[in-house]
């Protein structure tokens, strides 16, 4: 089957989703990210790889961390970065998504980093570029609707590999609001592709997608049962802004039952790491003592995220030559 993310040589052309990405491509991204982590310690925190390239951060939905880390990553690669907060500009005046893209292409864009509330928006842009013969322009999905957030999934894999070395003997728990979470979908796809033998999802029935088992995970509706003996705890943010209808009683009650406290974390392996994609709701899905505790690797996740995004952008931009 044609994979719209890969070019005819099997190299990464766009990064739209982890679902369907071959294991060797994921591993290559993680391997490439490793040497980029060292750049932060240099006097000059810049590499000349993407000199002269223009990268447009196209955010149709709010984001601080993701947009900032993409921006830092692009700047460390010497690219020119333009941030467009589209939710407050042309779209509000009625311009269509593809018209916006066409206009930016006319400004010599080399890459789009796209966040959109609608699932599939980055794919639509990639298809449009292909159909109009502009396949030298690359698209990175920075989160689309409930669908995917591939760079978050990749930086999570980088973090797990950094602390646990090997994926093939791990038990990983994903806890919380899986239903609304594009992060969870990317995490599950990455973990299963990389050979994690047991991926657990833990959450109330109202916040798990129907037939979530078909993604290759074990489902737990009891957090204490689910956390027993796990190596990695991946917390999800409770996505208040995506809730419609009464899926939850109150945040306080959610915390009581599903919040990660030190007492619940003690059920995991003693060396288990705790991850969170941010932004955290302290006292809702995670207790402060855990978020700031010795097992938390939440801030290293952010730092690794820069290196992983540098790897993705340089691998995409580096495909240009082989396409010609």
């Amino acid at each position, binding site marked *: 089957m044609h994979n719209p993310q890969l070019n005819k040589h099997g190299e990464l052309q766009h990064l739209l989703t982890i679902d369907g990405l071959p294991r060797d491509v994921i591993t*290559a991204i993680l391997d490439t990210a*490793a*040497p980029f982590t060292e750049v932060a310690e240099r*006097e000059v925190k810049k*590499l*000349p790889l993407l000199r002269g390239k223009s990268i447009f951060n196209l955010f149709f939905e709010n984001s601080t961390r993701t947009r900032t880390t993409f921006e830092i990553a692009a700047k460390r690669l010497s690219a020119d970065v333009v941030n467009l907060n589209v939710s407050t500009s042309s779209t509000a005046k009625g311009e269509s998504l593809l018209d916006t893209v066409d206009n930016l292409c006319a400004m010599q864009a080399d890459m789009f980093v796209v966040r959109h509330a609608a699932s599939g928006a980055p794919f639509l842009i990639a298809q449009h570029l292909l159909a109009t013969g502009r396949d030298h322009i690359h698209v990175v999905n920075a989160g689309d609707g409930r669908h995917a957030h591939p760079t978050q999934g990749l930086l999570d894999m980088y973090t797990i590999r950094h602390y646990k070395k090997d994926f093939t003997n791990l038990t990983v728990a994903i806890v919380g609001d899986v239903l609304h979470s594009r992060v969870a979908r990317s995490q599950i796809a990455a973990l299963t592709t990389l050979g994690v033998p047991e991926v657990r999802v833990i959450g109330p029935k109202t916040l798990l997608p129907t037939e979530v088992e078909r993604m290759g995970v074990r489902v737990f509706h009891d957090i204490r049962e689910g956390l027993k003996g796990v190596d990695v705890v991946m917390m999800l943010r409770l996505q208040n802004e995506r809730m419609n209808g009464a899926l939850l009683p109150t945040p306080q009650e959610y915390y009581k039952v599903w919040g990660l406290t030190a007492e619940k974390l003690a059920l995991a392996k003693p060396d288990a790491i705790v991850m969170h994609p941010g932004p955290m709701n302290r006292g809702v899905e995670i207790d402060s003592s855990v978020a700031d505790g010795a097992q938390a690797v939440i801030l290293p996740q952010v730092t690794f995220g820069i290196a992983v995004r540098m790897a993705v952008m*340089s691998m995409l931009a*580096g495909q240009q030559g*082989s396409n010609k």
Partner: protein
Amino acid sequence: MQKLDAEALFQTLVEQMRPHVTPDTALVGIHTGGVWLAERLHQALGLKHPTGSIDVSFYRDDFGSKGLHPQPKRTEIPFDVEAAHVIIVDDVLYTGRTTRAAINELFDFGRPARVDLAVLVDRGGRELPIAARYCALTLPQPLPASQNLQLETDAAGALTLRLIDA
């Protein structure tokens, strides 16, 4: 071409460098052959600073046409570059483009007092104004582009040079 004895060339290189280095001189090897060579030189010359290593993948001038090299290695400069005497070490000097990239990368760590270049073999074919201060052997005839001269090492660190068809 005559058979190249890498170990004999290594000894020649050590003797060339010895009068000019002090314990404060720092070595930086270029991946991969240059790193092996730098480690041997470090031992033979009794230098104080740990040896650095550079992978020039992120500084290459052919990124635009060839893309990123797969599996880039980590660049590690474990000493303070500012005001240091640094010798860049590579196994084979060819176009000079790798050396150019290594110099650029080195300067992103600080401003060295002096930078020299040491190589085992100069195979000719330069495309940039770069010359090695220390060089054990300059081939009398440049090697044709179809051939690659490559340093190899065994578990004990013994060096051999191999000529292969590119």
